[in-house]
């Protein structure tokens, strides 16, 4: 006797075909199916669907998948800091991988100590006799590390002019004409982003220019006093990179390519906010970015916008991974190698990410 209605019966079909239905329910369903042609047809077609799915063959993977995977693995293999792999290539150097973070910390401490030591080194004895003001202590205006100097309310420029701390520009002093010793600050270290920029309320906040220093044909390598002061004062617009770390004059004489071009295809519905996502990816990677306004020429070529980024070399692979999450990078737009020394400083990499709506 059929004790089931069609709705009940159809809800149990999957379990019935799996063989996981309780015996009593299975028997009642079988009775219903024998008497109900509609439900029996439904059961047949459901079974057919499951059979079709079971034998659905896999699509062959495109040939580029293997190449991309191997390239990505090789890239991580070359850059162990970007990999968290406990095995694989890291298995061949387990000892070092165990001490990765302590080694980096030790390197940072060593670097700091080197800068500190350099700062404490007495000035060279050779001095022009005609510059008595240079007898002042050889502390540089941009860095004030020593306790003694910290206790002072003012600091002394190389020329002996006392400058108020924290706001050197208000001193109204002209940069001295004499050559100053080369000094380094934390902002000069290539692995530390010089300027942090952020997105604010959906808009990208403009940042200081990447290539602040103008070409210096003389190539003296000594940063100008006002440049150092403005950088220390935190004035983003006045920021200048130390010339010690920019590309050599031979490169500055020709237009800088802003690193490797990357074409990033984004879907129309994902276009909104693509720049912001790229900028955030750059910041997460410890880099800096600059938004290039769309001009008529790039619009003609289909580029919807360009973001220039400069990253620490070690973060390039991670940044490219983040870009792949934002959009698709066609093969022709994907750098085959990421270790291109195209950044403006040693240890950095520059990319120009051109957004294309596809």
């Amino acid at each position, binding site marked *: 006797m059929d004790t089931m209605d069609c709705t009940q019966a*159809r*809800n149990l*079909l*999957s*379990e019935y075909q799996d063989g*996981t239905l309780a015996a009593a329910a299975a028997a009642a369903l079988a009775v219903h199916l024998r008497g109900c042609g509609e439900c029996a*047809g*439904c059961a*047949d*077609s*459901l079974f*057919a*669907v*499951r*059979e*079709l*799915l*079971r034998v*659905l*063959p*896999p*699509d*062959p*993977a*495109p040939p*580029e*998948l*293997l190449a*991309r*995977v*191997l390239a*990505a*693995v090789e890239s*991580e293999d070359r850059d162990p800091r970007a*990999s*968290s*792999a*406990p*095995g*694989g*290539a890291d*298995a*061949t150097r387990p000892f070092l991988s165990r001490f990765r973070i302590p080694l980096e910390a030790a390197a940072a401490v060593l670097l700091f100590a080197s800068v500190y030591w350099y700062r404490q080194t007495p000035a060279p004895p050779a001095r022009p006799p005609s510059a008595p003001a240079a007898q002042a202590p050889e502390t540089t205006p941009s860095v004030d590390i020593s306790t003694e100097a910290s206790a002072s309310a003012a600091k002394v420029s190389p020329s002996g002019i006392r400058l108020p701390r924290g706001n050197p520009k208000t001193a109204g002093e002209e940069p001295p004409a004499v050559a100053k010793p080369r000094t380094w600050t934390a902002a000069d270290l290539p692995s530390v982003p010089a300027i942090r920029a952020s997105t604010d309320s959906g808009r990208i906040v403009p940042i200081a220019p990447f290539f602040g220093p103008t070409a210096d044909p003389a190539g003296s390598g000594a940063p100008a006093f006002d440049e150092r002061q403005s950088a220390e004062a935190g004035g983003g617009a006045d920021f200048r990179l130390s010339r010690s770390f920019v590309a050599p004059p031979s490169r500055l004489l020709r237009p800088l390519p802003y690193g490797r071009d990357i074409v990033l*295809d984004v*879907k129309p*519905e*994902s276009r909104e906010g693509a720049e912001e996502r790229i900028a955030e990816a750059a910041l997460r990677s410890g880099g800096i970015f600059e938004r290039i306004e769309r001009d008529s020429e790039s619009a003609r070529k289909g580029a919807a916008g360009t973001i220039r980024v400069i990253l620490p070399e070690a973060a390039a692979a991670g940044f490219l*991974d983040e870009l*792949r*999450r934002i959009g*698709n990078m066609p093969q022709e737009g994907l750098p085959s190698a990421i270790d291109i020394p195209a950044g403006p400083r040693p240890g950095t990499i520059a990319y120009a990410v051109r957004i294309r709506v596809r």
Partner: protein
Amino acid sequence: MQRPGGKGQPVDLLVEAFRKGEPGAFEAIVRAHQDRVYSFCARMLSDREDALDAAQEVFLSAWRNLAGFRGEAALSTWLLRIAANRCLNRIRRRKSLSEREAPWPEPPGEAGEGSIFQPAGDEADRPDRLAETCELGEILTEALSRLDPGSRWMVLLSDVEGFSYEEIATLADVPVGTVKSRLHRARMAIRRLLSPVA
């Protein structure tokens, strides 16, 4: 094709070779599983480039974590678990998700309503008959793409890849009963999509 649940000897050998640092072992693993992983990603994401990216992420993640792979499940099962998570994350990120989703198909009031192709005739309405005359893979892939992603991956893992309900429940962190009911609804939806008058 090696099904999940068993410990395929060749795969185990490849994993061992990889752990020993033998050159070419990882490439062999990718070659052995790339079709399956890519297919799963392509059917989940319905986008070739997205699927390529996701499959690449899966193998990269595998490369990073293979040393910790304990072999409790087959390597293919492990890879597909990673793939499922990656694909679901990607789907969540898509802003146009609602546009891509089709509502759950209701039982058609009229023949052909809600179907992805026109009914061909009495006998030909059966899905197996239709599959004989049409491109099977395309039809099924299209039907799968009409499912909501939360059910699609369950159908792919269960009916295409052969995962057990328990494995899927563990992966989805839901009770087995929920997996069964979702799967049943998804299968019935595919049946309706494929056979308008069934």
